[in-house]
C-alpha cells in the first residue's frame, strides 16, 4: 500500500535531514509508538527510552525506506527494538540466575511492571504470553491487518488470527471480572 502524498513529501524531507520534518514525524507517530511500548513493558521510563531509541534508529534508516506503508515499516522497527530489549533482559536474567544459583528458571522473560500500576488493562496484557500481547498491541497501535501480522511473524494467518482472538477474549473476560483489590478493600 502506498502512502498519502503529504506523508511521502514529509518522508522525502526527513531523508534530506530536515529537522522540522523530523519533528513533524515525532508529532504524528510518537503517541502510537509510545502506546505500543507502554502496553508491552508497563513501564513509563522504559517506554520513553524505547521511543527515543526508535526515532534515532528511524533517522539512521530512513534513507533505506523505499516506499510502501511507512507505518508498517515504523512498527517493524519498533517491534524489533522491543524484541531486542526482551532478549537483553532475558540474557541479564539468565546471568543473574547463574550467579546467584537460583534453580527455578522461568521460561518466559519477565516484563517490567510499575509497582504502583493500577491499570487493569495493563495487568491483563501482562498476564498474557509476550507473543500474544505483542500481536494484540501491534495490531491495535500499528493498524496491522492479520495478513500483515502473519507475514511479520512468518506464520500461517490462521495461527495469528487464533492467537489474537484467544488473547483478546481472555483480556475482555479479565476486564469484565470485578476488581479483586476493590473487593478486598470493601
Amino acid at each position, binding site marked *: 500500500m502506498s502512502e498519502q502524498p503529504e506523508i511521502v513529501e514529509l518522508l522525502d524531507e526527513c531523508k534530506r*535531514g530536515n529537522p522540522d520534518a523530523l519533528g513533524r514525524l515525532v508529532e504524528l507517530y510518537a503517541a502510537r509508538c509510545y502506546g505500543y511500548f507502554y502496553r508491552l513493558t508497563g513501564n513509563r521510563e522504559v517506554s520513553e527510552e524505547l521511543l527515543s531509541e526508535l526515532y534515532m534508529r528511524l533517522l539512521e534508516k530512513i534513507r533505506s525506506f523505499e516506499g510502501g506503508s511507512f507505518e508498517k515499516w515504523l512498527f517493524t522497527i519498533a517491534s524489533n527494538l522491543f524484541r531486542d530489549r526482551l532478549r537483553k533482559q532475558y540474557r541479564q536474567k539468565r546471568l543473574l540466575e547463574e550467579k546467584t544459583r537460583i534453580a527455578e528458571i522461568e521460561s518466559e522473560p519477565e516484563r517490567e511492571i510499575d509497582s504502583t500500576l493500577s491499570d487493569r488493562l495493563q495487568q491483563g496484557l501482562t498476564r498474557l504470553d509476550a507473543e500474544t500481547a505483542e500481536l494484540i*498491541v501491534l495490531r491495535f497501535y500499528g493498524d496491522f491487518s492479520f495478513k500483515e501480522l502473519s507475514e511479520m511473524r512468518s506464520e500461517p494467518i490462521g495461527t495469528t488470527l487464533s492467537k489474537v*482472538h484467544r488473547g483478546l*477474549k481472555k483480556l475482555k473476560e479479565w476486564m469484565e471480572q470485578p476488581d479483586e483489590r476493590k473487593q478486598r478493600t470493601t
Partner: protein
Amino acid sequence: MKESREQLENLLRCFYDEDQAVQAASDMEAAESLLAADSPLPRPEVLVHIKQSLRQRAIALSRKRQLYRHILTAAAACLAAAIGLWNIPLRPESPVVLQNKIVQDFFADDAVQAISSSLDDISEQIYTGSSAEKEDSWANEVGNEIEEMVLIAQADFWKG
C-alpha cells in the same frame, strides 16, 4: 491496514462457522475498544527532548555525509587524473635521441664480433706490411708475434 468489520468476519468464516465468526469479530472489537478507551501518552518534555536529539543527530549525520562526499569527489578526481596521465601519448623522438639509439643498437647487436673483426683487420694490415718490407726485422718480428698469438688463440688447450 486493519480489516473492516466485514472483512474480518469474512476472514473468520474461513476458520469458524457463521455464528462463531460473528461472535469472534464482536469479541475482538469489544476488546480493542478497551485499548482505545485508555491510550497512554508520552510526557511533552520527552517529545521535546527527542526532537532536540533528532535535530542534533541530523546535523551530525549531514556533516558526516558531506565529508564522505568530499572524500569521494577527491578520490574520483585522483583516479581521473591517474587515468589521464596513463593515456597521454609519448612525444615523437628528437634527432639527437634517434642518433644515440642507433649507436646503442650498433654496439648492442654484436659488440664482440665487431671488436674481433677489427683486430683481424689490424693484424692483416701488419702482416701484409711485413711481407713487403722483409728487410725490416722489427716489423717481421712483430708480425711473427701476432701470428703466434692468433695461433695460440685458435688453439684448444686454454679452453680446458
